[in-house]
């Protein structure tokens, strides 16, 4: 086994370019982006102009053909610089990925290319008021009528909802059969019967769109069926597995931002006649933050690397998502603690980081669901050992 922690020269060139872009174009506006309460189009357009939206997409469809590890490292930089833009970037992948993997040639030409170039933004609709962790309860109905499907129902909390133009939506062609009836469709904003509901007001990410998708006799051409009828659960699970890498790396990026804020603060804040970084109490928090960030980063890179190797990566992706999101909560909380009273004010970004961190423990599979996924895999591995 060769373990090599070096990035290729191509990757290094890309990461240096992205880092510079993030530092100069995104980070200075991050606070304003959050306070604005509107979808961060200027930032998202800049990210698209940098060719970032389709990193793992083959070049023939307008992407960079560079794989998920490269994508993850770029996502990390985005999240560190501006978590909101990073979240848009992560949710975009949830539409792009299933079309890239399961789409027909026509679907890829029509939908993958504009998503890869960033000309259009994507979103993914699985969650419903009564179908969160329990994906089998999806009640959005899809019925075939001639050469189209008629969709009825609604989705909630959909990231990029209303601002994205291309959606992968999971509906049910056979209610009562749980996950076995699930079917994936590609929808475009503007399709007859497809509208958006209210934008959620949230604890953080005020400028991230999380809207309802509403289907009232929404007419979807049969050619927009993704993969096959009753194969939607697989589409959803595969997409969410990749999404977990995105969420994990988003959490790593945010935790890094917290450390990047906390250390310089500790080095300049004076108490008892010296800067507080001289105190072990502060040093230990910094050490824990830095160590946990590194651990989460490596776990996430490993998951992305496995994905690029075309081997099983789901367990590592779940582990990365679980560990990184809970680590992010701890790290951002410590960053507030290091800032003391100032950390609790809006004068410093760390209170925002802490609010934003909480999302990672919930979105795209709660920590509890990740533990189920991991335990399920681990138990199976041991079961297989016993059989041998």
């Amino acid at each position, binding site marked *: 086994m060769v373990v090599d922690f070096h990035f290729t020269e*191509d990757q290094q060139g890309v990461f240096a370019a992205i880092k510079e872009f993030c530092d100069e174009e995104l980070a200075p506006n991050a606070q304003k982006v959050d306070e604005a309460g509107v979808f961060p189009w200027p930032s998202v357009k800049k990210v698209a102009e*940098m060719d970032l939206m389709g990193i793992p997409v083959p070049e023939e469809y307008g992407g960079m053909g560079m794989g998920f590890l490269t994508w993850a490292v770029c996502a990390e930089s985005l999240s560190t610089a501006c978590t909101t833009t990073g979240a848009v970037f992560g949710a975009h992948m949830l539409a792009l990925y299933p079309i890239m993997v399961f789409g027909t040639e026509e679907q890829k030409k029509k939908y993958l290319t504009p998503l890869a170039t960033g000309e259009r933004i994507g979103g993914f609709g699985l969650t419903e008021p009564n179908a969160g962790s329990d994906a089998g309860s999806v009640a959005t109905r899809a019925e075939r009528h001639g050469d189209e499907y008629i969709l009825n129902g609604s989705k909630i909390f959909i990231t990029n909802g209303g601002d994205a133009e291309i959606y992968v939506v999971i509906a049910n062609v056979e209610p009562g059969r749980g996950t076995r009836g699930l079917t994936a469709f590609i929808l475009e904003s503007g399709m007859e019967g497809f509208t958006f509901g209210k934008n959620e007001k949230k604890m953080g990410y005020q400028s991230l769109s999380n809207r309802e998708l509403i289907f009232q006799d929404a007419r979807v051409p049969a050619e927009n069926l993704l993969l096959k009828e009753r194969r939607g659960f697989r589409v959803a699970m595969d997409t969410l597995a990749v999404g977990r890498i995105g969420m994990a790396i988003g959490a790593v990026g945010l935790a890094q931002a917290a450390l990047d804020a906390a250390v310089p603060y500790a080095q300049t804040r004076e108490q008892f006649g010296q800067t507080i970084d001289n105190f072990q109490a502060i040093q230990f928090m910094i050490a824990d933050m830095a160590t946990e960030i590194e651990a989460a980063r490596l776990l996430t890179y490993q998951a992305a690397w496995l994905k690029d190797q075309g081997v099983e990566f789901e367990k590592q992706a779940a582990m990365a998502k679980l560990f990184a999101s809970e680590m992010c909560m701890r790290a951002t909380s410590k960053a507030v603690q290091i800032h003391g009273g100032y950390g609790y004010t809006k004068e410093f970004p760390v209170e925002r980081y802490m609010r934003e961190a909480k999302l990672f423990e919930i979105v795209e599979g709660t920590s509890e669901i990740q533990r189920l996924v991991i335990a399920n895999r681990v138990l199976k591995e041991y079961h297989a050992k016993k059989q041998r």
Partner: protein
Amino acid sequence: MNVVVCIKQVPDTTEVRIDPVTNTLVREGVPSIINPFDENAIEEGIRLVEKHGGKVTVITMGPPQAEEALRRALSMGADEAVLISSRAFAGGDTWATSYVLSRAIRKLGDFDLVLCGKQAFDGDTAQVGPGVAEQLGIPQATYVIEVEIDGKRMRARRVLEDRYEVIEMRLPALITVVKQINEPRHPRLKNVMAAKKKAIPVWGPDDIEADPSLCGLDGSPTNVVRTFLPERHHEGEMLQGDTEAVVTRLVGKLHKLELV
């Protein structure tokens, strides 16, 4: 239109240190960047070509590691790059450098416009751009903030200390640009990747048919006798307190020094 951009690789610092013994710039441990004004020149070149068609060729005279600066220019979107590098060019003053660059530009073939930054961050002479124009025998406009091309003519707006000056000239011509002319773009990933694959030819004196006696130290009429930073004078005395008291003390001091 064919645009040639002349750039220089400089140390990434606004506080250039000088070795007191050798009188040269201390470069150890200082990362190198494209001279910031030259980035504006590259950006303007790319914009002009995006608008009018043609290609942008970026050249630099410098040591082998200056290739890094050319790669950066390619990743911004320049079409081609040439490194002009040889021991024979080392130690050149602004005149010898202008000569070498002008030979290289001639060698490139037909060109419509040569772009330079207004001056280099390290040397600060602002002489190489005008020198190249002189050696090429073409019109020039320095400190340009806005440029318009109309067929074979160009209109340039120059920033002077207290006013703008708009001048027109025939192409081919040379302009040096100020920072305010544009905002240099960040290299997009596709260009970063493409730039890595592009070949950057290295030209020596023979390639550009240069007279060796006009290159490098030999071709430099300027001799640098000594380079030094102005000595730091003692800090002034700060008078503090309420205005009236301070003014009274100040007037007292000025009288004492027989300055008033």
